[in-house]
């Protein structure tokens, strides 16, 4: 029983990363119809930025948790204005290639300076202990990640469903042309929404730094699963991406714990789930079929 609870908790913690990354991808896809292949690279930059800030400038984790998402969000906005924006009228494949190329460039720039080995990042001292849950202990830092990620997801959901900004973003996501006809400058919202999605990836990266190995390829390894998460939840569905993120975290953790005798299954379980979901619901669990334009 204790083992099961620990596996479940670990699954939710990995799920928290999937959810934050998938949420950013979903927001970006909804508004821009761009599948941001560079999302994993921004996650990596978040972690690496926190590492560089700490080792080169002594900036602590808590400051990095603010600086990196904001900084990367601004970088994302600049990239959207400079490149992505110019390609949105063309076939989506162009932005796919652009963001894929961006990923390779960002990864190699980091490799050039820091190599491919992993760099250690110390857990912030306030969260270095464990939390006693009665029947088992759990690292305080992981408890923090789970709580923090949940709070961010709930916060984003609140903004999207309860505020005027959220209403405009939903309307522009669902029917951009109609929304323009109602006096709303949809184009003005595209850049900040892209920056926001990138900021979420950066945030996930900073959170990952003390827990995962900080190296130039950390995002590339993770993003493949995140794409599966987004597809399972339904491309562009905010709720779907978060729910599928946590769900896939759980499935993976349980798979590794209880199907370890069948490594083929436990290593590919995410994609097995994706295939089954797509056969059953082609638009994903919470996705809607594209409305005719």
């Amino acid at each position, binding site marked *: 029983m204790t083992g099961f609870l620990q596996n479940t908790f670990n699954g939710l913690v990995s799920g928290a990363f999937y959810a934050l990354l998938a949420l950013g991808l979903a927001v970006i896809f909804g508004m821009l119809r761009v599948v941001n292949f560079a999302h994993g690279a921004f996650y990596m930059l978040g972690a690496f930025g926190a590492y560089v800030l700490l080792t080169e400038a002594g900036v602590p984790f808590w400051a990095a948790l603010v600086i990196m998402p904001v900084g990367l969000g601004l970088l994302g906005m600049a990239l959207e204005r400079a490149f992505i924006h110019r390609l949105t009228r063309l076939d989506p494949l162009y932005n796919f290639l652009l963001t894929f190329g961006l990923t390779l460039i960002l990864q190699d720039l980091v490799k050039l300076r820091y190599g491919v080995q992993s760099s250690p990042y110390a857990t912030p001292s306030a969260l270095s202990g464990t939390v006693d849950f009665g029947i088992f202990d759990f690292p305080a830092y992981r408890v923090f990640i789970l709580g923090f990620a949940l709070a961010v997801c709930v916060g984003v959901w609140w903004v999207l469903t309860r505020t005027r900004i959220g209403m405009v973003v939903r309307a522009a996501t669902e029917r951009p042309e109609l929304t*323009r*006809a109602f*006096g709303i400058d949809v184009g003005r919202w595209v850049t900040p929404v892209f920056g926001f999605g990138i900021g979420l990836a950066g945030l996930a990266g900073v959170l990952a730094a003390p827990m995962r190995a900080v190296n130039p390829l950390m995002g590339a390894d993770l993003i493949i699963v995140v794409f599966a998460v987004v597809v399972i939840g339904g491309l562009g569905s905010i709720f779907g991406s978060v729910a599928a993120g946590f769900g896939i975290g759980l499935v993976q953790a349980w798979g590794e714990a209880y199907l370890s005798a069948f490594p083929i299954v436990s290593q590919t379980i995410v994609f097995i789930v994706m295939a089954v979901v797509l056969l059953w619901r082609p638009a994903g669990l919470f996705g809607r079929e594209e409305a005719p334009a």
Partner: protein
Amino acid sequence: MLRIENLSAWYGEAQVLREVSLDVGAGEVVTLVGRNGAGKSTLLRCVMGLHAGQRGTVELDGRDVGKLPAHRRARLGLGWVPDDRGSYATLSVTENLTLPPTVGPDPWSLERVYEAFPALYERRESAATMLSGGEQQMLALARVLRMGARLLLCDEPTEGLSPLLVQQVGDLLREAKKHGVTVLLVEQNLHFATGVADRHYLLAEGRVVEAMENSEVRSRERELLSYLGI
């Protein structure tokens, strides 16, 4: 209020409007009638700024708006009532109503809208696409009245509605007209058109072929109906 001169429009290679000129005075209700494919909806889309391939002049209150994007035109007082009713599935009924900013001098308050449409009030928290077709049409009209739009562009607002609902749409447009709202209406239902409108333009193959008064439409109703293929 609205003046269109030599407006041509294309879908790719195909020309759908050929040098159309017409005008709509302030407070007038004017319909565009014509067969399917005559270019009526395209004309409305050109006025709204939603059609890319066009040439010619579109003037609003004497100001050339031909280069303005759709959202700027909406802010000058254009109210868009699309043929598919334009309901958002991800917005509640109330959000559908309050999404557009108010743009005119005399916007309806939300309370007034809900007083006039109790059915919408009852389902104000529902997704707009869960409403019946008639309710969605009322929502589309209520939305532009809440904006305070001065010129409504309505694309077949009575299509697929029961006679009772058609009458309600008519009452609503007459009420709007009484408050000085101008309406450009695409309409196939001639009986409805003569009931709400002052004048009519007959479009055929992308051209205005006739401008008619109500009396003329009534006296030639049989001929027009057979021409329209209804």
